[in-house]
């Protein structure tokens, strides 16, 4: 009798243990099967759509390379077109957060959209990972523990050219940028390391396509070097008109985001030899980058620019973090710590996060060249900064 009871007790205990295990597996497993929802906010209409498409394609390529799964969970990417309109972005992102309850929002491309969606996303508890925009306020005083940037702080690519111009001994620089916040930040960034004379600092109306008067003023001012920040359609037109005006042989052309892979197909030969600054270029000499460039071109038929690279890294970042937490998004603190570790192999080689969630990485001056197959890309010329963190991190209270 005693033996039977003892046996029954043992079985009961085992049954309970088994039941608990099943339950735990069920819960954990249930979450393991639950799709991971990621919102992707990018500009997919209008003149800047080519940049937004690179971000979308780069990110989706990363998910594809991971087999559509992160830490065993199928990934659902919900793509949102912000149309480069902050009010549209806010409205759609709010809908995304309320309806789909995403854990991650990857985006945006442009800084003004970032300013608009930062609060709604971080307030909701989701993580915001920007594959391009990296404004100074969120690097400094307004930094947030749920905000990570896989690109750079906005000033940095411009600082690269400022330092380059200074090191090369240029004395008189002429600057031109569009008349909006990013334009002002750009020229401020250039001036940080350049101590020569600024002949003039011109802000062209945003979206302007005709540079006859600006080029006339540049020609008559006769500076040593020109620094240009004119993204998208603005840059396409400026570069073509600059070359047509015959200034390309007389004036060194330094730029940021003006001759990148998103606009080179439109600029073509007009941009050859022009310089820019970035943390990566398609000809970077490491195995993961080479594989990525090949992979991207095979899938999308265009040369990837930094936008695609950064978006791809964002995908890798999320994968690394979730693998560390075994697919669980329930423990936000653990997930945050895992994100901060950035334990993945970046396409650009060295990569780690600063205290404010912005990267610490190397920067190079790159030059536009024509490839053997007729396509255009930027190529690394020389390194300008090593392990360069941004200037605003000191103001960020996060540790």
């Amino acid at each position: 009798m005693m033996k039977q009871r003892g046996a029954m007790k043992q079985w009961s205990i085992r049954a309970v243990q088994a039941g608990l295990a099943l339950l735990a597996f069920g819960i954990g497993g249930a979450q393991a099967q639950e799709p991971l929802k990621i919102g992707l906010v990018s500009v997919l209409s209008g003149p800047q759509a080519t940049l937004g498409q690179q971000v979308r394609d780069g990110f989706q390529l990363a998910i594809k390379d991971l087999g559509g799964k992160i830490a065993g969970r199928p990934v659902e990417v919900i793509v949102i077109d912000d149309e480069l309109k902050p009010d549209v972005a806010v409205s759609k992102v709010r809908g995304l957060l309320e309806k789909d309850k995403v854990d991650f929002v990857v985006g945006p491309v442009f800084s003004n959209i970032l300013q608009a969606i930062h609060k709604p996303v971080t307030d909701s508890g989701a993580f915001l990972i920007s594959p391009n925009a990296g404004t100074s306020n969120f690097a400094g005083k307004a930094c947030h523990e749920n905000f990570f940037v896989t690109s750079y702080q906005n000033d940095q690519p411009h600082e690269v050219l400022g330092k380059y111009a200074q090191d090369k001994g240029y004395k008189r620089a002429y600057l031109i940028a569009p008349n909006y916040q990013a334009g002002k930040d750009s020229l401020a960034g250039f001036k940080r390391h350049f101590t020569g004379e600024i002949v003039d600092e011109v802000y062209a109306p945003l979206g302007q396509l005709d540079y006859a008067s600006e080029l006339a003023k540049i020609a008559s001012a006769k500076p040593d070097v020109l620094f240009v920040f004119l993204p998208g359609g603005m840059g396409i037109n400026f570069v073509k008109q600059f070359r047509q005006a015959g200034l390309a042989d007389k004036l060194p052309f330094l730029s940021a985001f003006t001759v990148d892979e998103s606009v080179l197909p439109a600029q073509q030969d007009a941009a050859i030899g022009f310089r820019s600054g970035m943390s990566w270029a398609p000809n970077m000499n490491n195995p993961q980058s080479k594989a990525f460039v090949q992979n991207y071109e095979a899938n999308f038929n265009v040369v990837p620019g930094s936008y695609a690279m950064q978006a791809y890294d964002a995908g890798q970042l999320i994968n690394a973090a979730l693998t560390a937490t075994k697919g669980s998004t329930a423990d936000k603190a653990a997930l945050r710590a895992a994100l901060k570790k950035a334990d993945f192999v970046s396409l650009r080689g060295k990569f780690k996060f600063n205290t404010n969630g912005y990267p610490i990485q190397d920067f190079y001056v790159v030059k536009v060249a024509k490839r053997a197959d007729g396509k255009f890309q930027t190529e690394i010329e020389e390194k300008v900064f090593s392990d360069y963190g941004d200037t605003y991190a000191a103001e960020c209270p996060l540790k």
Partner: protein
Amino acid sequence: MRSAQAMVRCEIFMSLFAIQILNGLQLGLLMFMVAAGLTLVFGVMDFINLAHGVQYMIGAYLAAVMIAMTGHYVLGLALALIGVLLIGLLLEHVVFRPLYQRSHLDQVLATFGLILFLNQGVKMVFGASPLSVPVPAWFEGAVLLGDGILYPLYRFVIIAAGLIMALLLWLGVEKTRIGMQLRAGASHPDMLSALGVDVRKLFMLIFALGSVLAGFAGALAAPILSVEPGMGDQILILAFVVIVIGGIGSIRGAFAGALLVGLIDTLARSYMVDVLRLFTGAAAARGIANGLSSMFIYILMAVVLFLRPQGLFPARGRS
């Protein structure tokens, strides 16, 4: 030495000013071509066509496609215009004709639906990124205007084309029989059918003419502006401003209004920052300039409407 420097700066200023005047003329003439069709449709047919801007966009897209396909500018342009005409006639038959007797509000709503459909349709077919249309080979290059300043030749071509169009329209409206019917219709629409004019045919003609003009403007603008979905919406609102300033139903009014709006808008945008800098700091000037310069044509319109509600050159007989 000093006076020489001052003279050089003055020369540069004059050349840059000349560029802005030319830019203003160019914008004005493009707007004239769009506004002319709109004012006739509204004036004679009493029909509010919000989709007029879309016809401008279709002209640009068809031009991009036809020129790329045929590789030949004039042929491509001609094909594009034929396409615009056909589409315009199709729209007239299917969507607009049932609406002639309806209230203006119904016309507004229906043509709004048309805008949504066509803008999205164009995006689906051609993608969201702008199409690139090259400047035709004979018009490439630039013209030298004093002191090494280059002005693109193609923009002169646009100005010339606009002026020729204006002349042709003027001749057509003033000197031909159909033009007479048009003018009659613009001043006294109800009398028209009473006089035995085939109103149906006249409406179709006006529509066709308006569409082709708008499409032609779009095709002309394509190499220098962005060919993208929604490019017609901004032009639409400007066209309405133009015809209200000029006088509804009046081609002369559309011409005067368009040039006025084009010049004022361009000059305001170019010089606003500099003017503001006389009154306030650089940062404030840059911040305010964009909004303030955009307001100018609306202030102009409000003033004109207040002082002369029928417009600057109203169709004769219209009160």
